[in-house]
């Protein structure tokens, strides 16, 4: 037993010294980087006119590096599929919500929806956008579930799935349409880029919000006429 403990201590000492070496190496590498590099900031700034939005981060997310966002929507969907394919969780018995929580959720959820819409709209020219708005919407969904609301089983079937997939779906469809009219995949032509980006972002916001709330729920919502 003491022998075991001694080797454990020695191993931990070895681990700590190894990690210290890694930290020193990474720190040296970071400190050695030159900060005066131009980076991609100027390139983004020069092409901002053509992107359809005036906020550089939104332009990068939805236009210049649209692949990232497209695949990111895919990752969200895959995470949700993973959670759903694991089957239901044993439902945790919780106390009844009570009137305070009911009133709080009734007051707060419309505000959260309003803020999500605002963030989506403001994303074209200031910090904000689909991800932030989607997260706020997801938090609103979490709050609804915590307050004891459940999705009506009429909407939990096809409609819910359509909302979940629509973020990725609309993105792919718009990009493919661009391909058909002679641009590249994910290459929005400048005159309508702003409107297309807003369309994609609006659908993506709904889809991200629904997906995050469903990830919190942890199991597939019940489908069926009754229950």
């Amino acid at each position, binding site marked *: 037993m003491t022998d075991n403990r001694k080797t454990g201590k020695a191993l*931990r000492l070895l*681990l*700590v010294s190894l*990690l*210290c070496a*890694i*930290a020193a190496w*990474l*720190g040296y590498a*970071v*400190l050695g*980087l030159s*900060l*005066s*590099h*131009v*980076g*991609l*900031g*100027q390139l*983004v*700034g020069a092409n901002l006119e053509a992107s359809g939005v005036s906020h*550089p*981060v939104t*332009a*990068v*997310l939805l236009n*210049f*590096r649209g692949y*990232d*966002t497209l695949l*990111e929507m895919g*990752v*969200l969907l895959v*995470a*949700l599929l*993973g*959670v759903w394919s*694991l089957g239901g*969780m*044993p439902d945790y018995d919780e106390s009844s919500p009570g009137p305070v929580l009911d009133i709080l959720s009734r007051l707060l959820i419309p505000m959260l929806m309003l803020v999500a819409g605002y963030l989506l709209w403001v994303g074209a020219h200031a910090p904000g*956008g689909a*991800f*932030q708005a*989607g*997260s706020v919407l997801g938090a609103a969904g979490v709050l609804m579930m915590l307050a004891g609301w459940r999705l009506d089983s009429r909407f939990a079937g096809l409609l819910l799935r359509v909302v979940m997939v629509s973020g990725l779906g609309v993105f792919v469809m718009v990009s493919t349409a661009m391909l058909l009219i002679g641009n590249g995949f994910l290459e929005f032509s400048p005159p309508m880029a702003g409107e297309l980006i807003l369309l994609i972002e609006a659908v993506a916001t709904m889809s*991200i919000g629904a*997906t*995050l709330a469903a*990830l*919190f729920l*942890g199991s597939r919502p019940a489908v069926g006429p009754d229950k």
Partner: protein
Amino acid sequence: MSGVFLYALLGVGLFVLGLYALIIHAHLLRKILAINVMGTGVFLVLVALAAGNPDAPPDPVPHAMVITGIVVAVSATALALILMLKVSVATGKNHLSDSTRD
């Protein structure tokens, strides 16, 4: 923007700290927290270096990458938590058992 290196080194520190906790803790919830801290460290290095050039506005490309990264991290965390609960239901343990030792 003299604090850039401060934050970059903080990112390195958080990454190594998370790695240490990831290795020494057996409990799966702690491992999930550790991976989240590691990811935050990486994000911090990226954003700190994006703000590095004092003459230019911050580079928007790393910012966009980090925003997608944060959303991916939270969805991966949700999946990991459900997997942890499943492991806990199936085996009654909160850590992955080592077959050579059990």
